[in-house]
């Protein structure tokens, strides 16, 4: 086997990015999966992308734009999810498509070449700078730290927001905190994974972990593990077979999910539930 891969500076950076991004995204994924809001995550990631395009067009830091616009999306989506007054699917769907529309509008308005825009769309884990990695490390550390510190509040909020509120937990603040972290994570991983692909790295590892455990703590750990594994395996495959790194990572994470589904002990639950009740006619 060829181990020259570890010798290159860009590859070391990519591996670090894969580990940190895998952890950050997959922990956010646990919230997204357990709170049944995958569409909110999609809307947020497209909002971040639109913000980055706005930054590129107007000439300020695209990551700042990404962060601000994803916060804006959280401020719109949050109350909808919180009060549940409009069908969240509809409203989030509108925001999602609006953000995608804005992204391409800003790309169209951009003068000159669009290569930097396409880089953020597809991501390129191999061109990461030290600054990108430091930002990602901070975001990943904050997320892990918050989950450890506020595990019980988060657990109760994820389980049932109304119940959490009724026992005296500030569930609304926790919900907004989760949306805020989602925005921050997507922003920090935008350059390496890309606006379009990021969402599968959020959803797949958590969805895989969800198939395998009935413990929320284990689900967080497993999800992070799957996230890191997906990024690293994807990265190596892309290196050895000369494939686009972001896309390979996404496909790898989907395969991890598929394997988890196949080996899921929870599939039995479904079968058991579907079993028709035998009627006692005597």
């Amino acid at each position, binding site marked *: 086997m060829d181990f020259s891969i570890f010798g290159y500076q860009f590859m070391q950076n990519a591996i670090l990015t894969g580990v940190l991004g895998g952890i950050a995204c997959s922990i956010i994924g646990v919230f997204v999966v357990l709170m049944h809001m995958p569409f909110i995550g999609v809307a947020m990631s497209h909002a971040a992308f639109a913000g980055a395009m706005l930054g590129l067009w107007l000439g300020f830091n695209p990551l700042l734009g990404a962060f601000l616009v994803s916060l804006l999306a959280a401020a719109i989506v949050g109350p909808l999810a919180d009060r549940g007054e409009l069908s969240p699917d509809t409203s989030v769907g509108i925001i999602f498509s609006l953000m995608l529309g804005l992204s391409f509008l800003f790309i169209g308005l951009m003068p000159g070449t669009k290569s930097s825009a396409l880089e953020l769309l597809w991501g390129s884990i191999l061109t990461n700078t030290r600054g990108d990695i430091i930002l990602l490390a901070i975001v990943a550390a904050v997320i892990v730290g918050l989950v450890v510190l506020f595990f019980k509040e988060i657990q109760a909020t994820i389980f049932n927001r109304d119940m959490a509120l*009724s*026992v*005296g937990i500030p569930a609304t603040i926790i919900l907004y905190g989760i949306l805020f972290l989602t925005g921050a994570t997507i922003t920090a991983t935008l350059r390496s994974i890309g606006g379009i692909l990021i969402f599968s790295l959020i959803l797949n590892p958590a969805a895989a972990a969800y198939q395998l455990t009935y413990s929320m703590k284990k689900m967080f750990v497993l999800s992070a593990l799957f996230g890191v594994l997906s990024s690293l395996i994807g990265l190596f495959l892309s290196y050895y077979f000369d494939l686009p790194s972001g896309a390979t990572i996404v496909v790898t994470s989907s395969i991890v999910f598929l394997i988890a589904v196949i080996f899921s002990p929870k599939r039995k639950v479904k079968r058991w539930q579907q079993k028709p009740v035998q009627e006692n006619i005597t």
Partner: protein
Amino acid sequence: MSDSIISIKDAVVSFREDIALRGVSLEVQSGEFIGIVGPNGAGKTTILTVLNGIGKLRHGRVRVLGQLIGNGNGNGHGLRKRVGYVAQLQNIDPRMPVNVREVVMMGRYGAMGIFHRPGKADWKIVDEMLDLVGMTHLGSRPIGHLSGGEQQRVAIARCLAQKPEILLLDEPTASLDWRAKSDILELVRLIHDTSGLTTLFVTHDLSALPVACDRIVLMKEGLIWSQGTTVTQLTDEKLSVLYDIPVDIVRRRREQEVTA
């Protein structure tokens, strides 16, 4: 007013254009068991949400456990720790990675405070409460695998683990089968009698009312329409007006319920 544990004066609550409570006043003494009965949309649940500080008061004064509610008086988290709330049966994902003991422990979370982790004393309380509701044997099962009746027992255990002073039960037996319903009603009454709690029990279903409520409050269209003892309130005539059904039909249906 003197030793009222709950004092509601002229409470008005509205959601957008719908007025849920139109000026409701109610005094509850410590240790009382009150049944609140009325058709859907009468404002029964809204009263409970006002009491745990989640509902937003438009007008009126509400004092619970000596604490004035609303009017910028804190966010209500402190009060909620002292008021237990059991909602009607929730739809829980069977794959939700939370087990029964963890759900009961969530009742302790508010009182525990931020940054604190459940200690041995907390788990002891959890196990006592599980024992009280007869769910010890299911302690390590995922919560989503339990039947409706079992889930409601766990919800009651969670509520008691909170060590509340007031117990609010919002249609806890809705969508449960007959056996589970009567078991829960017995359990609620037993808990009330042994723990010295003040209990408010909301239901639209007369057969889901625990026996021997100290007081029955009848609600209709956002108002308290009548209140008094079970005997004076749950008459065919009053129920006929409350639910807009002719008296003879009320009588027939109640007879059917007794014989069923």
